[in-house]
């Protein structure tokens, strides 16, 4: 498989084989003897139409670790966008400046796909509104595989706001490409996984043996899971000082004392930032993996840049 020159817009564009190939290349790039030289003459355009801390920093550091440079903007309010320049034109312009790859984050769904159509050079989607954030999903999958040695057949629970969480939607769709996964969706009923995704899970049962359960308490499943994927219950989804927000946050909170019956290899993951859903006392347990997971984001993004720029095959 050759990823040189390819766009990375949506997990839906990738087959299981392509995902596996990317994940296999992560240690290759991470430990490459000439890593610092790989992208020596390459420049990445960072087109950040909305703020981001982790994704932006990790892409920047990733490019620097490969010996490349970055340009672009991180605040659309200082660009011609405020002069009502279209996304198409902004991308076209950067496409002509001699960059080798574009990394784009935009608040609108589908913006990255449109950017990829405007640009000759490859485009990496670093988040298009609530739609896709494929590098996050790939780093989640990498972290799962790294800690469990496989993805097929795992039991993975997702907890929190499953209605609005982009990461859990995308992760669910990706896991449905694997065989015999058991997915457990734990959320208040108001924040349950969307029906369209539940339908996809049902269809995947026949094709790949995937099963799913919807539950409402973390404690009921803690002893069965290989991965506990926690998410934040976002304040902005609730009205000001809503009693529900506090209630949900107290129910969907993981504390170290709840982990006693967990399997020894069970890992707790989280896309970060966390608020109250993982108590600080979990950090000291062997189950905590969210900071390594975030660090994996750097390695996965290095790998994607190296593959798409064609410096590693």
């Amino acid at each position, binding site marked *: 498989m050759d990823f040189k020159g390819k766009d990375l817009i949506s997990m839906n564009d990738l087959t299981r084989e392509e995902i596996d190939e990317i994940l296999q290349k992560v240690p290759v790039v991470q430990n490459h003897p000439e890593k610092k030289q790989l992208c020596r003459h390459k420049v990445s355009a960072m087109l950040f139409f909305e703020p981001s801390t982790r994704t932006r920093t990790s892409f920047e550091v990733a490019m620097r670790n490969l010996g490349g440079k970055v340009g672009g903007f991180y605040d659309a309010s200082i660009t011609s966008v405020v002069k009502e320049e279209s*996304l*198409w034109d902004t991308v076209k312009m950067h496409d002509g400046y001699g960059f080798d790859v574009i990394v784009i984050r935009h608040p609108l*769904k*589908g913006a990255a*796909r*449109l950017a990829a159509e405007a640009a000759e050079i490859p485009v990496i989607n670093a988040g298009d*509104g*609530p739609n896709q954030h494929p590098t996050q999903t790939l780093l989640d999958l990498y972290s799962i595989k790294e800690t469990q040695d496989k993805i097929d057949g795992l039991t993975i629970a997702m907890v929190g706001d499953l209605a609005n969480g982009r990461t859990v939607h995308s992760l669910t769709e990706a896991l449905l490409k694997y065989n015999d996964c058991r997915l457990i969706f734990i959320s208040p009923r108001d924040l349950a996984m969307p029906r369209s995704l539940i339908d996809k899970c049902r269809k995947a049962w026949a094709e790949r043996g995937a099963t799913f359960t919807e539950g409402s308490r973390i404690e009921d499943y803690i002893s069965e899971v290989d991965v506990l994927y926690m998410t934040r219950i976002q304040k902005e989804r609730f009205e000001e000082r809503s009693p529900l927000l506090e209630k949900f946050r107290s129910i969907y909170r993981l504390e170290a004392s709840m982990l006693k019956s967990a399997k020894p290899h069970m890992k707790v993951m989280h896309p970060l930032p966390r608020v109250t859903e993982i108590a600080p006392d979990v950090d000291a347990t062997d189950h905590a993996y969210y900071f390594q997971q975030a660090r994996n984001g750097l390695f996965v993004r290095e790998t994607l840049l190296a593959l798409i720029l064609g410096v590693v095959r």
Partner: protein
Amino acid sequence: MKDRTITIAKIDTGIVIDHIPAGKAYLISQVLGLNALARETGDIIAIGINFESPSMGRKDIIKVENLSLSRDMLNVVSLIAPHATVTRIANGEVIEKHKVEIPGVVGDIVICPDRFCVTNHEEVPGRFYVVDHSPLTLRCHYCESEFFGPLIKYKEKT
């Protein structure tokens, strides 16, 4: 019931779209842009609504003089009228009759219902994949939203 025979504008050359569910002919003519076409060409376009039909009870029918749309273009009719038939007529003779087929891809005739979709903010033609036939479900090429039923809204060409 009183027998009545109604004929509408017999055409010598053109296209007849028949077996349209009653009340949908006007929407189809809008999606196909027949109004604009009529203005441009001056050709006859006849829209019949609520005709009696043995198989459908009531049906609509559209006749367009001198029109020669490709099968692909006419297949968009299937989104609104899945059982419609198309008859092509040349010099008073039927030269082809076929059912419309649901296409795999739908072009810029539908509006993405997701208000956060880039197509609702930038000037970009929409593109949609048909992911299910029953109920007809579309997926936006850009924002990847899937939608069906009343959420499928057609662009009106005036």
